[in-house]
């Protein structure tokens, strides 16, 4: 056996999608047969404001290299204003993570409606590409959760 040191990096990306817009947008991307990276794992949440900072950190702990949050466009929230709260929360969280030296590109928020299958696919492709460039998540990793 030879150790070449060459390994292909397959990132793990967690996408939190709200039930009403973004998850439906992902569905549309699927039914429209639009390709987006397989490394994106979607977690459905009732609303973008359901996402607690712990969810984001937990995803990193469990091995995610990037976390993206998708919700209804401002003004279109199924619960009227959930995404406005989420917007403030995530802005402060992303800024705090940046302040602590976690790479900025590892977190992202994008508004995707149920009609935007193409935008969903493009957003995921773009985000995955950035994570490829950033490489493995080292600064927010939990060795206890690593199998290899």
């Amino acid at each position, binding site marked *: 056996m030879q150790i070449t040191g060459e390994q292909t990096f397959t990132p793990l990306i967690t996408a939190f999608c709200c039930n009403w817009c973004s998850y439906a947008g992902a569905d549309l991307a699927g039914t429209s047969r639009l390709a987006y990276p397989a490394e994106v794992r979607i977690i459905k949440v009732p609303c973008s404001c359901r996402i607690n900072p712990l969810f984001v950190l937990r995803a990193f702990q469990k091995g995610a290299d990037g976390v993206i949050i998708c919700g209804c466009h401002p003004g279109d929230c199924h619960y009227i204003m959930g995404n406005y709260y989420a917007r403030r929360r*995530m802005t402060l969280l992303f800024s*705090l993570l940046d302040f602590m030296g976690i790479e900025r590109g590892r977190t992202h928020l994008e508004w995707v409606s149920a009609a935007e299958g193409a935008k969903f696919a493009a957003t995921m492709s773009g985000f995955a590409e950035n994570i490829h460039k950033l490489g493995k998540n080292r600064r927010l990793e939990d060795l*206890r959760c690593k199998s290899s």
Partner: protein
Amino acid sequence: MQEQLRILAGKMLADGRAARVLGWKRTDFETAPEPSFFTAQDDLSELVYNKYCAANLSGFMIGAGKRDGVTVVFLKPCDTYSFNQLVKEHQIDRAKAYVVGVSCGGNAKVEEMEDVGWLERCLVCTKHDHVVYDELVLDESLSRPEAQDRFGGVTRLEGLQSLERYEFWQGELSTCIRCNACRNVCPACNCKKCVFDSAKYDTAAKANVTTFEEQLFHIIRAYHVAGRCTDCGECARVCPQDIKLQLLNRKIIKDINELYGEFQAGQDTETLGPLTAFNADTDAEPSIVHTRG
């Protein structure tokens, strides 16, 4: 002042207006008085007030409000902000508190029982007046250290590269022993059940193989009080490892001020907090983190 407080407390207890007095009690060490409830007039000789009375008593008023009768509590100007914030969050029963505002000339930083100068929070203090009180006991002769820029430390860190910031925080946080003192002392941190007591999520104690647990604890500790932290400085004061916890709290406060308008938690009991409000039209998108530099 100490004498005035003893007399006032004695009167309140004697005529039955108060069931107990919450103040600072003498201990074996002059530099370490401890928070204590006084119910008997005879014990009041143990009540002290000096620059070592740094403990913010507001948090104890949550429990005191659940007991019968009125509690007299001594609060320094900065402590009154915490008190107000807790009233706003319906944690303190205002009707059961008799707030005595006391003058403050800054608190001493104590290391190994020795007085080693001023507490950091007192060097940047802007909270000079009591925002809530029933009575004031003032001492005009007390003067404070001259105030420095509260956000100076945050701004300096913001100016570093991402990796430098990461290394700075690794240096700070890796020394954390997870004693939880910072969480326990915080008046805003008052959930009955805390995720960091959960044995199920490996979050209850320091992990010796990884840095994640410290980051998780500290990100959530700071974030959980976002918009509610009055910057009372108790967390940084009690940390046995002298970790600069105030930088995390103040980063959030600075962001809030810059993005959503100046806000001081505990200033009043009505204004909506920055995270319980929003502005549909003008709020920035999270991507602003990329462009702010």
